């Protein structure tokens, strides 16, 4: 992957982006210590379709990319809040 589509700015070179890690749901505050530790420390490295945070640095745009980490294909990108509004 050398190009990435920012939902606001279109296709831009990868050098303009910052990776923000996998998008994961935070457990409720009432969760067990074990659940919380799992959320904080463990990541699933198995290849497949992942939702990831990406940041378009020049414009300050965070968005979500659905990327297959096996093929490095990005299925789609969208703003987090757009998806939440659905």
């Amino acid at each position: 992957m050398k190009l990435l589509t920012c939902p606001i700015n279109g296709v831009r070179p990868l050098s303009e982006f910052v990776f923000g890690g996998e998008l994961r749901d935070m457990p409720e505050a009432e969760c067990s210590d074990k659940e919380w530790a799992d959320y904080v420390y463990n990541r699933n490295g198995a290849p497949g379709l992942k939702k990831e945070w990406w940041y378009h640095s020049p414009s300050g745009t965070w968005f979500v990319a659905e990327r297959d980490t096996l093929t490095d294909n990005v299925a789609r990108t969208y703003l987090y809040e757009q998806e939440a509004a659905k």
Partner: protein
Amino acid sequence: MSMRLQNTSGEWINRNNKIKFSFEGKDYEGFEGDTISSALWAAGEKVLGRSFKYHRPRGIFTLANHDVNIMVTDGVDTNIRADVVQVKAGMKLQVVNVDGGVMADKKRFLDSISALLPVGFYYKAFHTPRSLFPFWERIIRNAAGLGVVNFNYPRILKKKHYAHYDLLVIGAGPAGLSAALTAAREGLEVLLVDENAKPGGSFAYDNAGNSAHHAQLANMLSEAQSLPNLTVKTNAYAAGYYADHLVPIVDESGITKVRAKAVIVASGAFEQPPVFRNNDLPGVMLGSAAQRLIARYAVKPFLKGVVVTANSYGYRVALDLIASGVEVAAIVDMRAGGETDAIASVVANKGIKIHNGACIYEAVPVSGKLGVKGAIVADYDEASAQADTQKSIQIDCDGIVMCAGWAPAAALLYQAGTGMRYDDQIHQFVPSRLPNGIFAAGKVNGVFGLNQRLQDGARAASDALKYLGYVGNDTTVESFAGSSPSHPYPIVMHPKGKNFVDFDEDISVKDFIHAAQEGFDNIELMKRFTTVGMGPSQGKHSNMNAIRILARIRSLPVNKIGTTTARPFFHPTPIGHLAGRGLHPHRDTPLHQWHAEHGAVFTDVGAWKRPAYYKVDGQTKEQSIQNEAKAVRSAAGIIDVSTLGKIEIHGANAAEFLERFYTGNFKDQRVGRSRYALMLDESGVMVDDGVACRIAENFFYVTASTSNAAAVYREMQRWNQIWGLNVTFINVTGAYGAVNIAGPLARKVLQKITLLDISEDQFLLGAVADTSIGEIKARVIRVGFVSNQAYEIHVPASSVLKLWNLLLDSGSVDGRVKPFGTEAQRLLRLEMGHPLMGHDTDGLTNPFELGADWAINLNKPFFIGKRSLQIIRKRPLLKKLVAFSFKPYFQGPVPCECNLVISKSGQIEGRVTSLSLSPTLQRFIGFAYVSPVNTKLGDVLSIRTDSGQMVEAYVVQSPFIEGD
């Protein structure tokens, strides 16, 4: 004798410009446009180099940038490929990899003891005893290798260009030209690249004795020239394929990184040699090499030759040889059935004897193996790859051309992730599944006839057009007819060997058999054991035969053996092309010029250049730092803190946002006050700190540490994507600069130039006010980081220098206001007992270990890291930061930051994180992590210094000083 032919139509040489050069100390003359090899061959020279391992004489083999045994040096460049590099006037060339000249090479004896040097010999013979390996290694490395590295090589910077096209077509042969024209006619911006000096590929040299089709080529080239949206680039090769159609195009002047929307690979095929004994002698060459010699350089390959072939192509080459005046003594066709195409009778009608079902059992060398004097022709059994020598005959000749088949030049296709399958009809790997936007055309796609290749190019262009959203014409490619262009097993066994598969590394058939016997019978393992394909030509003429041999050894179809992927770059590329320019972008503060003019020694902090200290003549670095610190304690100092991250947070939920983002309370913060802001990550580790100023009810001005500013701003934006609060962030880090004035005279100096009342009881620690200083709009924050009396003044970046000078002028009346740098700042904040984030903390430090419990409100419903802190708090602390000092009159060696604190039982207890000589206290002070049971005042900590000597320090009160 001269082998130069009369003028040939389409030749690449300019006979009006003679080029004089020398080779191995002897003078030669060639023409402009000649390569080094063609000029020498024209002069009758046949021994142009020696092989890598056995030092056998070698001549022209491919004339296509794969003659890696013909490498020469001009004293500057180490490994010049003579087969493709044009000869220049005055060149003084020597052959590399020889000891005493190419003819008298002292290492040529190696060929006669080759039986003692099988593959794997070095691994086995010198493996034990291990202690002797360095000795053998030196000898082996001396013997191996090609050119000698020139350590005085000039530093040559080559340009890096970027270019964007709709379509990139790689290879300007019939398929590539046709593809580029078809696409360009539809309006696409097209780049067509070819590694040769001129476009056309085999269109221009594969003539079969008849150049009628050159008119069509000329038409296509003139159309290409007339299309403004088609760029043709020759002498340039596509060096690799990278994701999203990024292809570096390498030429002599540098690299152009081309990004295309689609790529057509029409890179053709590498001709593959049949394997027979002495197939490497000078004078034995590929059919395509002979054609290139004749058509491009008007050089006769030899006087009388034998054509060994396994396809119709050999007959085409024979016709070209005849047309150039070569006497073709015989055609040896390895196929039992011979050639079925009509071309066979055309050749036969010229009186050429054709031996069907025959092979060259061996080439007969002249003395010293400096050339060939005959070919032993024997009956050949295709099934067993054995020759029947009972009725063998010797045909006298001084040259042999070899036409046994092709391997696709598919490196870029492999790199792009193309699936390849072995086609049993044409005995070649062809693309079976192409990635999006990648297309293949011509020989690399398994299409061989000239008309078919032209059609295949148009077809690929049409596919690319459709892919790009245009209407492409449907083009059909006539289906393949005739005999296979490649022989399935062009190998002739010989009991005496020397039937070479890989010319780079002198690997013959028996080496593969041995490798398989040793258990290296997987293509990847065999490659590494035999080193096949690991020479400079990267297997371009050897991998296909190696795969065929391995398939036969293992009784598997070729499809099951698979191939290795040639990594970028396609050809060896000079380091100068790849090396960057050493550009390190950095940021200067608005005062940079002033600092530089006043002796600042700069240090890198994040992306910024900051003054570490101001060098004073006659003082050491340490003295300068101490004096800067003393000035702050005794009068006042100013430091440029423009590099601080500065973020404005606006909106109805601004305070709510800060409460979630930082550990402390902000909702009850009054306008005009600032508060410490500590940021954790989700695991409770401290990542940054700063100050949050409430400028208005819905407006906070937050600072962040210099190197973390961008990341803090980013994280603010990300978290608010999730929280959806009504806030807006503006990163004003570059828009504002800031100066910190600190010391007992700070208030007095500042008060003189501002109307803001900053008297002790009016402007308390933590106060914030917007005011003006002279004409400058300024925000003043009372801080306490380096001194009890300190004011951080934030002003627009354009006004920082004005402010700086105002402060210096104002201070000049009441005593000296001295600038200080980051080194003194570190020392001063240590005296004040303030840990520095990232310096006294690391990637695992939690706030309890630092003693920052006061900055955390665990009663808030949420903040980043809270849930982790709840867990951490339940557990015993593992370490704690303490302030330490040494006994008065301490004489021992002074430890360094990062020296370890060792417990009584000899375990590592912690480490020293900060250590400085305090000018105020006249002793060394510092912070260190120690065991939590060892934190009471007076507790002793043992520090192991760099020399191993232990020194004792003791826990003291922090802050170290009362303040000014």
